[in-house]
């Protein structure tokens, strides 16, 4: 799906965090969003997914408005249908096992469940043996991969990841990043990753850097 971000602006208590952000992402494109801590990467991604309402500007999917300063109601449906989101810390629903988390994600986002696909996805990420473990029983690396599995098991057209590797050591970070890219390629999903971690730069053909509320290409 074609994503277009137009003139996006967001301020917190009069302080501009985003001011006039513009970019496009073509279907299947891989995009890295870089910027120092506090530069507004999370804010930008949240607005992109319709989790936050911008003060100004729009986000369109294939030309249709998904997010605007007026409303994010259209965003709820579109996000459910087309987005897989990996957060830095919120990875899984704590009361449910890993497998149940994936089942719930499928049920909520696609309306049906596909058990073989869940096992295949867990196997693909090397955590199928932990399928019945609860989130708190997983290691950091396992939990991060589980979050990716949760986001991808619904076969989203767009995969958004906010700091997917910041909690991981170097080895795990590169492994998780490589997996994200691999899986996005396999499923043909557009991949947008936000990070302050420069080490990921070589894996992405295109990098956007957030500076003082604007993108420096």
């Amino acid at each position, binding site marked *: 799906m074609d994503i277009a971000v137009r003139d996006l602006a967001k301020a917190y208590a009069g302080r501009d965090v985003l001011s006039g952000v513009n970019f496009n992402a073509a279907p299947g494109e891989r995009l890295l969003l870089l910027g120092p801590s506090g530069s507004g990467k999370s804010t930008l991604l949240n607005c992109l997914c319709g*989790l936050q309402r911008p003060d100004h500007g729009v986000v369109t999917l294939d030309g249709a408005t998904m997010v605007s300063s007026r409303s994010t109601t259209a965003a709820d449906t579109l996000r459910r249908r087309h987005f897989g989101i990996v957060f830095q*810390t919120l990875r899984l629903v704590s009361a449910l096992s890993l497998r149940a988390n994936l089942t719930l994600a499928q049920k909520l986002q696609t309306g049906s469940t596909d058990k073989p696909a869940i096992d295949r996805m867990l196997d693909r990420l090397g955590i199928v043996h932990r399928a019945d473990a609860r989130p708190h029983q997983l290691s950091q690396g396992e939990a991060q991969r589980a979050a990716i599995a*949760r986001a991808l098991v619904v076969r989203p057209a767009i995969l958004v990841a*906010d700091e997917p590797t910041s909690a991981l050591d170097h080895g795990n970070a590169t492994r998780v990043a490589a997996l994200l890219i691999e899986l996005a390629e396999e499923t043909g999903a557009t991949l947008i990753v936000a990070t302050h971690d420069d080490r990921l730069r070589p894996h992405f053909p295109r990098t956007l850097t957030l500076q003082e509320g604007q993108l420096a290409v």
Partner: protein
Amino acid sequence: MIGLALAYLRDRPLTTALNLLLLAIAVAMLVLLVQVSAQASERFDRDAQGVDLVVGAKGSPLQLILSSIFHVDQPTGNIPLEARIALERDPSVARVVPLALGDNFRGYRIVGTDAGFAALYGLTTARGRSFDAPMEAVLGAEVARATGAEVGQKFIGSHGLVEEEGQEQGHDHAPFTTVGILAPTGGVADRLILTSVESVWQVHGIDEHHQTGERHEDGEEHDHHEHKMATGRESLESELTALLVTYRSAAGAMRVPTMINRQSALQAAVPATETARLLDLLGASLEGLRVFAWLLAATGGLAILVALVGMVRSREGDLALLRVMGASRAQVFGTVLLEGVLTALVGTGLGWITAHGLIMLARANFPALAELGLAAWTPLPAEAVLAAAVVGIGALAALIPALAVYRLDPARVLARAS
């Protein structure tokens, strides 16, 4: 969403168990109270139906009613036959049913009466026929079931209302013959053995001669009895224990009790008044328990509220994630509400089962309770109302945290978390 609500409940087993326990105890108490008062009053009404007035010997009116209508207490004494004749002559009296009490068979009271008793309670025989000749008896359904007695069998009554262990006072010289078994009524008649007044007299007339040390309140040997003896016969009179009176007209209620109470040996007791008094007594003692039980239920609701508020706070991240995954506001709201309602439902169910299980146990261990008419598994409309109220408490308790979840802004939670 039910699965998710259950998962959260299972996630904090101690809190959930505690909340369930609180609600279950409250519901069990409430159900027991409802059952006891409802079944008592229903039983009272059924057994007192058609009886406008009970005439018996002077004493406690409550005891007179208990002994002659519910058959659970000793009679107040005996009354002369003339009382019956006088009442039957009264134009405002439709029916007078005589009762001659005193003996039991294996704890089931033998009632000397006439055909009017069957008419009063609408009794029909399931097998055999009604009693006719002296020493013929008809067994209530429960008596027949418990003793395994059949038509044609003979049995011997023993003295008193309840049979005592090793009792040596059986009237073994005067056996009764079972000629019929009554169809079950659900009333007191199920646990009675009916015979003619003459049969009761006959048993005791003889008794008087055999067991000189024993005092008998009623007894006159029947004139035609083969064991008739001369000794002491003249001193015995044919007596009755009580009379069940049905009025023909409302005027009876004005005149008859006054007329009876004027006679020094007699008293008239109105079943409706006495049962109302009994229910009042029961009600007053149950009221305190009822208040306590509702307080307990409210505490259960409060416990759910506290648990869910804590849950919502600690699970904010989860709930935000659910929203991100596409759960609507209504869905996350529903999950939290469902947790409260599920807890209340299960607690109510447990309490209900406990209460009825207790009733069943009590019935099995104390036959006297079965006598009182406590049925184990009959749900009452009041119980449905009660269950709905307790589930309502659960829902109400869950509403506040559920609303907090409804208003939850996932972005703010995400911002805080990352």
